[in-house]
């Protein structure tokens, strides 16, 4: 039995907005090589968690370690190891796909930008579109550029915030395939915020469920499906957990 390495770990993470406690003592563990689906209703605290893990904001209290580095005190090291695709990014419409990627690659410190852009576009099967302006792109094409900018500097972890939002069924399928290939071929750990259970079931290897800032469930997808034998679908498991606010279960994926 091989022991997987922890790549994301939060301890008693709290975040307080003006009058709203977005996260309450969040203790989360994600292992290297996982595709982690972070589920929760709107306003559950998923984006706040990603914002903290990607160093965009410090937590009110508690700690978060990403790729072995503290998100507050070692934010630069964290940033070198992560790629991020926020929800609804439109990028710079007046620039071509290549110019957008070139800009983000250079800011990420990529040395041989031309070669790296070509590699990433090849991997995403997106050659031939690099000289088109992003203003002409569909949502699905933009998401590919979004993934491209997120992996251009060869990070260890990829954070995706509602990546399928606004995509048509074909776009969702294509994105799912890309995510799985990134995980399998590039060995990227993927942390994905979503509320689409169908996607979690088809893509993720482990899941966590956030309810009003509290992690109410965390386990592998296989274990989850085994644990709830009476339920017929993941959706019902999710609804039941949301309604009951079940306590966090220990993860058994090591």
């Amino acid at each position, binding site marked *: 039995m091989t022991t997987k390495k922890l790549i994301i770990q939060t301890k008693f993470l709290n975040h307080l907005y003006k009058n709203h406690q977005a996260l309450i003592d969040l203790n989360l563990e994600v292992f290297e090589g996982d595709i982690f689906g972070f589920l929760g209703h709107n306003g559950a605290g998923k984006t706040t968690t990603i914002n903290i893990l990607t160093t*965009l904001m410090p937590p009110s209290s508690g700690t978060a370690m990403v790729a072995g580095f503290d998100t507050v005190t070692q934010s630069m090291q964290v940033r070198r190891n992560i790629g*991020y695709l926020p929800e609804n*990014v*439109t990028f*710079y419409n007046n620039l071509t796909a290549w110019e957008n990627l070139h800009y983000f690659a*250079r*800011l*990420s*410190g990529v040395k041989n930008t031309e070669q790296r852009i070509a590699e990433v576009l090849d991997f995403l099967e997106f050659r031939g579109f690099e000289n088109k302006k992003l203003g002409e792109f569909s949502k699905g094409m933009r998401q590919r550029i979004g993934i491209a900018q997120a992996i251009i500097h060869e990070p260890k972890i990829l954070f995706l915030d509602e990546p399928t939002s606004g995509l048509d069924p074909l776009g969702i399928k294509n994105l799912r395939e890309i995510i799985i290939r990134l995980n399998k071929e590039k060995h990227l750990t993927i942390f994905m915020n979503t509320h689409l259970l169908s996607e979690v079931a088809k893509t993720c290897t482990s899941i966590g469920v956030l309810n009003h800032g509290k992690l109410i469930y965390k386990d592998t997808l296989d274990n989850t499906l085994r644990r709830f034998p009476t339920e017929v679908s993941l959706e019902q498991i999710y609804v039941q957990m949301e309604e009951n606010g079940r306590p966090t279960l220990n993860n058994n994926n090591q």
Partner: protein
Amino acid sequence: MNKTAVWIIAKKEYRDALKNVLFIVLLAFLLFLTAVSLSVAGFDFQSQVGQYHNALAQLQALSQTGAVLEKPQYFPLQMLRGTIEYLEIIGAIIGLILGYVSIAKEKGNNTLQLLLTRPVSRWSFIMGKILGNSLLLLSMLGLIIIFIVVAITGIGQVMFTHLELVKLLLAFGFSYIYLLFFYCLATVLALVFRNLPNALIFGFVIWLLIVLIIPQIGDTMDPDNQIPGGFFNHMHMTTAQQRGVIAQFKTYETLRNVLEESSIEKHYERLTFAVLGIKNIYNDKGLSLIFQDKWGDLTWIGSYSLAGILLVYVAFNNKHILEKSA
């Protein structure tokens, strides 16, 4: 600070602005107004020369010399009064637009999150943005200088002295500092406001107050401005007598001065008018004498812009910056 990242961001800011139609239109408008103001100043001087020659001809016809007439003297830098006044108003708007667009494009496209998750410090981002837009403002001012020099030396056939050229460059250096303040102001507002159009509206309200309303109130309250040509001048009062009169209205004068001092525009105008000799008492004076008198105004505009940069830094480091862009 990551110098490479600063330069990458600066270059993008510069290129983006050159593709910004509003910026190009405002720049063209400013150049047009500069041309108009130079032409008006040129015609004004031509009319003074014409009047002088007419008067001289009349005196000579009466067999008298023209010794009693004061020859109109040509000071090319004095022709820039209109240009400076347009920079005060339109230039400030350009600064506001650049600052607003610089942040609004990142917030509007949600690219702010992408930028802030790169291994680049926030200070480097700020410096990149400020450097790019500073180069743009300096290019814009450079273009105006070239336009002025070509117009005055090429069309007017008048050469600038070295001192005049230095004064011209200094005045435009001060213009950059003045415009930088408005760039920073709009940047801060765009960062702080959740609703971007509100940030722009608020920016224009401040512009209106600083550039138009406060200086106008100060000017209107100035007793010397009550009649054309100056009240004291009209009354043939010496400087000592003027001071004596003003001393009788100490509270009133203090209030008026506080109002004027609170506006960066007034300090900019006082400084540039002195350096360019538009204010007659400074015309043809050496720089040391001018700065002896005007160091306070220079300190003020420098402080305003420095405070602007610091505020941009504070706003950019606000941990709630992304909540505000939601």
